[in-house]
């Protein structure tokens, strides 16, 4: 075990896969000489050379398409898209090529592609650079989308993504890069599609992923001081979605709140609420509540940006109100 940052954990995973498998290479904007906008690929160009650490023009559709082609012919490309916002320029390549080629062409070739990209608002980057649009990719059959919230998961899920034979989008998060945690020193990949109960509890289930999974734990600790016992489910993977873990938790606690950094309407929380309704309807003692971002383009001004993003206080309110509704008053 080592105590390292989420950023370092990602870099460790990339590096050990590059050392383990010569077919793995990195491609993206500013990842070589500049070492990546968020320094995930620091030192990689020096260590592995320009053939395996490829700087590209500002042309997401072009380099994502090139990576898909390389993957089809046997390499294992890891694409960095500077933030998830710019993935929109490569949407057709991801949705119509990476996700569909294996199924559409009779299984002739797999597409072992990884797209690494951070989401997340709260950095005053304005409405077009602050989005949480992982849902667009989690929506598409043929894609896998993982969303680590801890340094340990960042490493284990990145290892799993690179070794997976299907296209995997690894959702990183700007607000998590500097967070620190215990990370195993070995290179044991996670199982993609498995959620984790990161805190066991009996009173209410809080479902979250990425940054909000860390907010969920913070809120759980706060409420524990008042005797409220919160169970936290960190989804870790948005597709495939581990519905069983969510359902088992709600069958135990009988109520749930979903925290998400994306917009409310049609969001991940809506899918979780539907999952709970399908699998735990007869165990529900209160309606499922969702805490999400205000339905506006994220404002630039700091007070407005803060107000629009879901907070720990918003989560506490929703949890209290849900527990009030089942008359377990605290």
């Amino acid at each position, binding site marked *: 075990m080592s105590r390292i940052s989420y950023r370092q954990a990602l870099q460790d995973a990339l590096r050990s896969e590059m050392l383990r498998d010569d077919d793995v290479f990195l491609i993206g904007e500013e990842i070589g000489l500049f070492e990546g906008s968020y320094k995930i690929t620091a030192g990689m160009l020096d260590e592995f050379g320009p053939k395996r650490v490829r700087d590209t023009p500002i042309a997401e559709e072009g380099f994502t398409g090139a990576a898909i082609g390389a993957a089809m012919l046997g390499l294992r490309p890891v694409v960095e898209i500077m933030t998830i916002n710019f993935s929109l320029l490569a949407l057709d390549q991801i949705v119509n090529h990476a996700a569909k080629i294996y199924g559409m062409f009779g299984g002739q070739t797999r597409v072992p592609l990884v797209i690494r990209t951070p989401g997340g608002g709260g950095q005053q980057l304005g409405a077009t650079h602050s989005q949480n649009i992982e849902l667009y990719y989690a929506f598409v059959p043929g894609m896998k989308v993982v969303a680590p919230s801890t340094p340990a998961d960042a490493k284990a899920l990145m290892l799993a993504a690179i070794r997976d034979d299907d296209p995997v989008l690894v959702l990183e998060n700007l607000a998590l890069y500097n967070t620190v945690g215990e990370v195993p020193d070995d290179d044991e990949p996670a199982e993609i599609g498995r959620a984790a109960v990161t805190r066991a509890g009996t009173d209410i289930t809080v479902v979250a992923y990425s940054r909000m999974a860390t907010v969920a734990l913070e809120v759980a600790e706060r409420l524990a001081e008042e005797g409220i016992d919160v169970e936290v489910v960190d989804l870790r993977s948005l597709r495939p979605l581990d519905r069983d873990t969510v359902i088992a938790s709600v069958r135990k606690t009988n109520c749930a709140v979903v925290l998400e950094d994306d917009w409310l309407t049609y969001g991940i929380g809506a899918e979780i609420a539907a999952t709970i309704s399908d699998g735990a309807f*007869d*165990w*529900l*003692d*209160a*309606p499922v509540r969702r805490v*999400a971002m205000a339905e506006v383009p994220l404002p630039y001004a700091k007070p407005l940006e803060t107000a629009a993003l879901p907070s720990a206080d918003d989560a506490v309110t929703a949890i209290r*109100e849900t527990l009030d509704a089942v*008359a377990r*008053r605290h």
Partner: protein
Amino acid sequence: MIDILMPRLSDTMTEGAIAAWHKKPGDAVAPGDVLVEIETDKALMEQEAYEAGVLAEILVAEGENVAIGTPIARLDDGSGEDAPVAAAAPAAPAPQAASASTSAPASASPERRPASPLVRKIARERGLDLATIPGTGPGGRIVRADLDAVPVAPAVDPVRTQEQPPADAPAPAPAPAPADRIPFDGIRRAIASRLTESATTVPTFTVTASADVGGLLGLRAELNAAAGDGTRISVNDLLVRAVALALRQHPGVNASYSAADGGATLLHRRVNVGIAVASPAGLVVPVVPDADRASVSTISAVARRLVEKAADRTLSAAELADGTFTVSNLGMHGVEHFTAIINPPQGAILAVGAARDELALLDGEIVSRTRMRLTITADHRIIDGALAAQFLATLVSLLEHPLRVIA
């Protein structure tokens, strides 16, 4: 339609009463408009509207008391859309403006009671008839907690036990003497339930000491004469300050009992002294925060403002929250001494009697002394008799050396 729910206005609030509606059905409502005044266990508070619309229906009349989360009114926002995040989306269709009749519920089948899916499942398993079970959730929804009160197998016929006394029942008791019934308001109800909880669950003991307060009264007269601008320090202000200093010296008294994890003493880092005030509505205990760090003149100003607000019933929840110890002073009524009931979750309360002239023996001489009796009631789970005695000794010493109180 948006359901407006009884809000949670303080951490200890479990129910609230509608004191007054400021809007009536048909009135337009803008965000920020005061909709309703709500009386909680602590204070009277105004509740503003968060959404624009027209007040469609008042569901809880003035004077009625409901649990938090209960819909108290419906707002027609004119959009026809479901309320977004918070609303507990009622299944019933919104009544159109035409019908204002009150008798029939909106639901077509009167036997269909709102109940959570979990409750319906348990009811099927246990063979319970939901029609007989009162629901305490939002909108009267039956929630699991409501089933906990219901026996698994009905042992008695509830109709029979209610309506038919056994054949050998004694003759009915004679009618009680006539009395005028004054229904409890929220504050009275809170006093009744909190003090019942305190007196029935907390093992207490009392310790009394008396202080010679001649010097203290003299100092107070000097301070008030020197101020000259009409500001007057009361004996109670000096007492609050002295108590705060004594609490700082004996943190074990500035404490609360916690049952969690096998029990614990919670030592409070701040010294917030509650002062028991007889308000028109009954006993309230506003709090002088950080009284150990405030000067007597500051305590005096804060206390005066709190007492005025108590008289107007305008104390905010914050002004009533987070007390760590209470001083109850009946000295102004000439009471010699008394005992008080602990204000939970605090660990102790001090009951203060009047300063009275008494004869005392000093070096064999009979002299006149002004003495005040101080009685602490303490929670024996966390405070032992010796600690209470040491606290009182510190307090008496401070009161008898009053310059240390204002130093």
